[in-house]
């Protein structure tokens, strides 16, 4: 392994993040506060409790997941798309590095940024609601896995995309709807039966449910299924990334 290269990529990518640290910090704080004002105060005053948890606290796991997923995707996809776009990818291609090293560097950096934002949101939420985390280690593990797997997914999108529109397409058309319909702001049990069944085909449901379980000890789907879902998603992304580098798809001419 060329760890020196992994470190260089990671440090270089993180530098981009630190250059805009204030932005990276302030925007999740503001958007989280807005969510609490709108959902927590306005709607929450009508919905008293969900499964024995105050509505304000109930939406926290979903809120974190929402940002972590979108941030992981956008950071990772941009991170690898940008060198392709401006041509600096030549250096990666001519360097003595293998696919694993490139992926660890880029995906690691994107996952770190997403994790940072997840933690900021968690801290901001604690200012609004009384949060008790039942299984803190499970919570951290879930958040980490989500950061990594969605960063991997974003990496694939960044390699696939051939222009900026395509870069936005999948997150906008697929990921955001799935996340919003994934039970971020409600419990699946609140839906009519037919929708409950349909919702079970949405992979994001399993992630949010598992994450919420770590907070409150209750979930829409069994925790084992949630673990399986995230592990399966990570494995799928890994295989896809491995194939991409094996074949040089959309990277090497």
């Amino acid at each position, binding site marked *: 392994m*060329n760890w*020196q*290269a992994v*470190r*260089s*990529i990671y*440090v*270089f990518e993180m*530098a*981009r993040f630190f*250059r805009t640290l204030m932005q990276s910090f302030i925007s999740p704080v503001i958007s989280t506060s807005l969510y609490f004002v709108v959902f927590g105060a306005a709607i929450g005053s009508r919905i008293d409790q969900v499964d024995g948890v105050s509505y304000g606290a109930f939406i926290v796991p979903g809120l974190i997941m929402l940002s972590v997923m979108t941030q992981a995707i956008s950071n990772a996809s941009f991170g690898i798309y*940008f*060198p392709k776009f*401006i*041509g*600096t990818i*030549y*250096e*990666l*291609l*001519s*360097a*003595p*590095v293998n696919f694993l090293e490139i992926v660890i560097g880029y995906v690691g950096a994107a996952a770190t940024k997403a994790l940072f934002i997840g933690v900021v949101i968690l801290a901001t939420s604690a200012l609004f609601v009384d949060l008790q985390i039942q299984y803190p280690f499970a919570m951290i593990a879930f958040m980490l896995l989500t950061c990594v797997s969605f960063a991997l997914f974003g990496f694939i999108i960044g390699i696939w995309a051939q222009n900026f529109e395509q870069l936005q397409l999948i997150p906008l058309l697929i990921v955001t709807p799935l996340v919003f319909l994934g039970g971020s702001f409600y419990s699946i049990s609140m839906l009519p039966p037919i929708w409950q069944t349909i919702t079970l085909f949405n992979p994001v449901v399993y992630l949010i449910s598992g994450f919420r379980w770590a907070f409150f000890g209750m979930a829409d789907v069994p925790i084992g299924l949630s673990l399986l879902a995230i592990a399966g998603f990570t494995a799928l992304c890994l295989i896809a990334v491995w194939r991409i580098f094996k074949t*040089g798809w959309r990277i*090497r*001419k």
Partner: protein
Amino acid sequence: MAAILSVRDLVKRYDGGFEALSGVTLDIEKGEILALLGPNGAGKTTLISTICGITEGTSGSVTVGGHDIVNGYRDSRRMIGLVPQEINLEPFERVINTVRFSRGLFGKPKNDAYLEKVLRELSLWDKKDSRIMELSGGMKRRVLIAKALSHEPEVLFLDEPTAGVDVELRKDMWKIVAGLKASGTTIILTTHYIEEAEAIADRIGVIAKGELLLVEEKQALLTRMGQKQLQIDLTTAIEAVPDALAAYKLELVDTGRALLYSYDTRGERTGITSLLADLASAGLTMRDLQTKQSSLEDIFVGLVAGDAA
């Protein structure tokens, strides 16, 4: 001397089916400077990109320092520095950071003292904290060179390093290249300027339509080019060159109506004055005179047009 870079029957067909390299074979010795000349679209960049791993060859093989570029890519690539034809740099990055990044990417431990030396030699040290977008075009090109040199490569590829560069900077670039050669770096550069190849290369290669037409010592080429021919048209045809003129090694052409004299333009004396005097005393009268020179340009154009020089 052993070849540090060895290319064998390299073929590159792009996805569309276009064959950009059709069987290139080339050996480059350690420490030499090879200039690749060739018209636009000849395949120069494709050749370099394939050796460096940016594109994949269709068939054939390449070794760098004995390491195969496919099976031993880590060892082969570690030895190579590449300055691409296009200026590809992240506009918001600072010079020093992008150079550090390159060094790390190639697996070398941090060494800011070395990077300082490289940047100073390229007159970039005072710009080390500038953002790329604040630099001029010539400076950006030097940043690309600094990145390529950041990991102490043994073989350096320069793809048109002086394209769009003013005369002064071009001379600077030549000095840099000479300095690198002195420190033992092997250099392969592409250029459209024949004077450039003449000024810095040890050997010159000509490539066109994906084929390497010629690789020759610069000196041998120059000797070929240094030859000039004087044609003397005579008023009356003669049977043979008079014995009195034997020393000039004249050639009788045009059914005896003209004499050809070859001489070296770079010699102290060309011998033309004495030839003309001796011609008159041998009783020959001339009707006309003309000279012809084969330049590298002629050889080049001739080769590229398809008829071998």
